[in-house]
């Protein structure tokens, strides 16, 4: 059993402290005595994005024309992916998501979208979209009732999306790339059932407050969490 306290800790050694604490097999703690404890989660999720962002196209060097410009939104898209993250809990109720990563890719059917940049016809392929999230710190609140736990978190992050594209050149096409970057702010609501003192399985739903636009996406999935 590892007990930790914020007392005496400087911010400079916080990461070292967290790394030492992140021995999740040993991370069992009695909640009432916990001041600050590290946890983590892995999740599989699906995301519905209401409108894909306006992406920036960059034509390759071997393209007949040097092109760079904004492509129109390809509309809605469904993605599936996985994520992993670290959190820290303070006392019984406060929870601070720390850092994490998520990766997702398009699933299901999506239209071939034709557009143009500087006169050249461009084809976008939303079904080739992949998205990576760097999940940054947030803050949340949780309550526990016997084997159940409910929590609500608001967290920040950065989202990168990329989509396959090609530029027409007569009867030929030149492969190109398109991408977009966005600040991420989202709420995470989850209901968990404890499996043992440090593990629980959760259903989570995460509406994006901002992700390539306000209210633009919602993510839902199952999480496997470990920690106090």
């Amino acid at each position: 059993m590892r007990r930790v306290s914020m007392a005496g800790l400087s911010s400079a050694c916080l990461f070292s402290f967290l790394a030492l604490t992140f021995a999740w097999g040993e991370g069992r703690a009695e909640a009432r005595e916990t001041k600050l404890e590290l946890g983590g989660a892995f999740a599989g999720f699906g995301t519905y994005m209401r409108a894909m962002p306006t992406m920036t196209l960059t034509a390759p060097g071997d393209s007949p024309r040097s092109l760079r410009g904004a492509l129109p939104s390809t509309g809605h898209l469904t993605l599936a992916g996985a994520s992993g993250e670290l959190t820290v809990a303070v006392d019984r109720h406060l929870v601070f998501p720390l850092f994490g990563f998520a990766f997702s890719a398009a699933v299901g059917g999506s239209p071939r979208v034709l557009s143009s940049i500087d006169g050249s016809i461009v084809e976008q392929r939303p079904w080739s979209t992949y998205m990576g999230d760097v999940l940054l710190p947030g803050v949340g609140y949780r309550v526990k009732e016997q084997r159940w736990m409910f929590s609500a978190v608001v967290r920040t992050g950065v989202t990168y999306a990329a989509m396959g594209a090609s530029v027409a050149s007569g009867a030929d096409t030149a492969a190109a790339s398109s991408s977009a970057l966005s600040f991420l702010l989202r709420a995470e609501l989850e209901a968990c059932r404890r499996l043992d003192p440090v593990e629980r399985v959760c259903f989570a739903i995460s509406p994006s407050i901002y992700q390539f636009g306000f209210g633009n996406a919602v993510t839902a999935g199952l999480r496997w969490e470990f920690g106090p």
Partner: protein
Amino acid sequence: MKAIALLAGLAVTAAISGCGFSGETVDHVGQGDGAGIPARYGTVLSDGCTPDTWQASALASADMRRVVQEVVLLCATARASGDVGPVDGSARTQFAQVAAGLQQKGYKVKLGVQFSDETAERYDGALTAAQLASPTWRLEVTASLKQLAQATDGVELVFHDLPPTARGDLSAFVKEVGAALRPSKKVGIFAPPSTQDPSDVPGGNAFDLPALSQYIDRLRVTTLDYADPQSGPTIDPGWAVDAVRFAQGRVGSLPIDVAVPLYGNDVSDLGTRNVSYFEALALAFDYRVAPSAGPTGALHLSYSDATGRPHDVWYDDAQSTVRTLRAWGPQVIPPSVGILYYGLGAEDPLLWPTLARAMP
């Protein structure tokens, strides 16, 4: 056990992610510049002195009159003798009547002049260059042209495959034609779609565009036969943009047209044959092949003829032509640049009503 369940869950997620597939095609071309097609000065070229009944019907339609303001009748041929045909009185009278009829419909009418031999098929650039080098020949052609152009609003000079050595003589000829006809008649020239200097297309180096721009009223950039002599679409919208920009950089504020081919090409080892929209449809029907859209949206089909010779056909329908025009938004090609619709009668008949609806 839990670790196995975790790994299984992640494996399932990884398996389904990235399993997207393509659905229908959505066309957003040109939407960044606003819906529709920018209003541009429209010219249609009819290959011949007298439009046939099909062409005449199209020219009489309200849709075409909304899209097109000017008609070029590619009728005249400059001969080695210095005459410009047609030379027969009856033919000239007929031509004048046709021009007057079109003018009554509200069109400006230009006389297109080709520099080919009497068959009007063979373009020998070296022969034309030799003729242009003769001041006497130039004077005779200019005088004949002035007479023939009386029934029209101007002339359009169409040269093919001129060698670079003709550069000075071509400028001298255009200067002489301009001096004889302007300002009462307009003078225009068709120039190859160069995108660089020295030119990257046959005949392009014969055109001293800065010099020529002093003697003409409009430059028509012939963005046609993009893939020639290979198989491919007759135009690539991005290539046409580059050609227009290059020309604009050479002629300043002179009005410019970019050409849009209305015909298609049937390419085999025998060469390239122009085909109309309906010919292409007939080939698809006869040889039981389904046309498919190429990268630019132009339609494409392949077939083997009765002798087993493979053919590639590329052509446009109303949808693909409209897509090309929408790709040329006002931010890409200024609205002052006009459109030369090349090859009246070969187009998808839905083109004119589709264009009329798409224009503001």
